[in-house]
């Protein structure tokens, strides 16, 4: 479990904001701002955060679906940001993505078999027979009956479609799977089915997951470690248990307290945050969270806190947390 599969160093993704008739760059949306972390082989690292915190952009930048504007992404110790297009394509066999919305991410004109075999033909020169065999294998693994392989996506429910997306990603036998909100569009009873499937497949294929979600409950269940993002930065990163039992950052505390209880008799101590997430075009000075932070001090307004290790395997970016 100690081998590092993916290492992200000071990754940045800035989108230029253009204005005026000459479309001059007026400023930048700092969607991902100086983010560093490591993912070990066969572990599940989750990134949580509210909408607009940059978690999806981060996931896409790592796979170079969006071209990062700075930093390094080391996959098996090689910086994939230096790769040429051809090399990158080869690399992508090992890194696959599962999308949130199983309704828009599958081509409605292709059958299940075509959808799932497409990545095989793209990445390997493979005979039809061989491809068919691999498709059959993976469909069985994700729990889709073989007789459904001639059907089209619209004939399936949301949960079934997500199984197709997962089959599409896993048919290449990747090492790393970036799952971007894979269960958010599904009903509660179906969510659990898909999560269970992801956990089972991880064991079977020795997968490493980078799991992106806004739902703290989902993440708690399947992650080894969890990172909390806010305005393009990771605020806290720790083992799942440590993060949920002893959160250190005020934002993590507020986020956890806002999750509805599953028991009407338990009344939670609730930290209600004021206001909304500030716009990433014009992030606050100092700590990005200081305007909404119930504990903010003067220092927080001016000085950006560093992301430091305060306990074994526990990193926080906050002035108020003592080392």
């Amino acid at each position: 479990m100690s081998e590092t599969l993916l290492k992200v160093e000071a990754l940045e993704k800035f989108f230029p904001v253009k204005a005026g008739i000459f479309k001059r760059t007026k400023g930048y949306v700092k969607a991902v701002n100086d983010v560093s972390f490591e993912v070990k082989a066969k572990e599940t690292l989750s990134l949580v955060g509210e909408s607009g915190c940059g978690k999806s952009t981060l996931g896409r930048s790592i796979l170079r679906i969006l071209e990062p504007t700075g930093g390094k992404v080391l996959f098996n110790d090689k910086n994939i940001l230096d790769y040429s297009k051809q090399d990158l394509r080869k690399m992508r066999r090992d890194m696959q993505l599962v999308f949130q919305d199983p309704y828009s991410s599958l081509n409605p004109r292709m059958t299940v078999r075509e959808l799932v075999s497409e990545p095989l033909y793209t990445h390997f020169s493979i005979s039809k027979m061989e491809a068919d065999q691999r498709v059959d294998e993976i469909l069985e693994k994700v729990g889709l009956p073989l007789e459904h392989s001639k059907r089209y996506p619209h004939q399936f429910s949301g949960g079934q479609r997500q199984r197709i997306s997962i089959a599409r990603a896993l048919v290449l036998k990747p090492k790393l799977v970036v799952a971007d909100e894979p269960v958010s569009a599904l009903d509660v009873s179906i969510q659990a089915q898909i999560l269970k499937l992801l956990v089972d497949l991880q064991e079977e294929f020795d997968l490493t997951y980078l799991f992106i979600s806004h739902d703290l409950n989902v993440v708690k269940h399947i992650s080894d470690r969890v990172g909390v993002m806010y305005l393009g930065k990771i605020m806290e990163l720790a083992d799942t248990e440590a993060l949920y039992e002893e959160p250190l950052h005020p934002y993590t505390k507020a986020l956890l307290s806002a999750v509805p209880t599953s028991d009407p008799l338990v009344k939670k101590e609730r930290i209600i945050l004021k206001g909304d997430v500030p716009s990433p075009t014009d992030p606050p000075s100092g700590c990005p969270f200081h305007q909404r932070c119930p504990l903010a001090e003067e220092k927080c307004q001016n000085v950006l806190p560093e992301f430091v290790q305060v306990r074994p395997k526990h990193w926080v970016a906050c002035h108020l947390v003592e080392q």
Partner: protein
Amino acid sequence: MAPILQIKDLQIDVKMDEEVLNVVKNINLEIGKREIYGIVGESGSGKSLTSLAIMGLLASPPLQVSKGEIFFEEDKDLLKLSSRELRKIRGNKISMIFQEPMSALDPLFTIEDQLMESLKFHTKLSKKEMKRACVKIIEKVGIPRPEQIMKEYPHQLSGGMRQRIMIAIAMLCNPKLLIADEPTTALDVTIQAQILDLMKELRDDFETSILMITHDLGVIAETCQRVAVMYAGEIVEETDVVSLFHRPKHPYTKGLLKSMVGDRSDALYSIPGKVPSVEQMPKGCRFVTRCPEAMDICEKVSPDDLEVADNHRCKCWLYQKEMANHV
């Protein structure tokens, strides 16, 4: 205490070319004054259709209420009112907020226009008085700088702000009943906590009853006093919130509670299969295809909606058999 809203034996059908298919059946519920009543169910369970039927907003045809009564304030059967009478109640005594605040607000009008619209229709206030009422309600829903916000357009506001505006519009005429259809589903958790808090506060200040429609059992546990669990167009269990979470009776409710990911047990539980489609509704109990405790009788005959404990109704053969044995 007399209920604000009473639904009796409501049935909604959808008329296809040749056949008539049933989508909602045997809905019975009562909402008391100042009560927050929850309806929980997965997508396609008929919870939104039920709320639209109360408002008289069902797309008819093809949908139609084929049976039942909906009494508002004891004596008025909403289903028998003319559309004119209904318009007087809608947005005034009963109002509604929706899941997606962006599509519920008109992008071409300022917040002020949209707030004034319902006041113009339902009250005889002067323009000045109306404006004052708007400012007051915007402050009430926790938005700073009300005068400035009123001049803005919906796209200039964040999701949480828009939902606050929706709530402000709904609360303007001081309704007796507020129907909230997935009010926080499109929002982030920290914003969801703000909005749920606000709704509880408004319930206390305005003495409004709230019908909370959601798929999220967490939202139910946070806010509601009584809950109805819907599955495939029927209420399968109905009771107070504590009994539902601590002494659930129906296998579907039990499954739903167990599959709530999060603080409970470690192993992930999931209900196998999926909700049957309208065309393939089982003949007996509608949950029979996914039920871990299904018996022969469940496939053939639909169980009755029975009181299985004090104030606790459940529609399941497991408890009916028990009853039969007792007699």
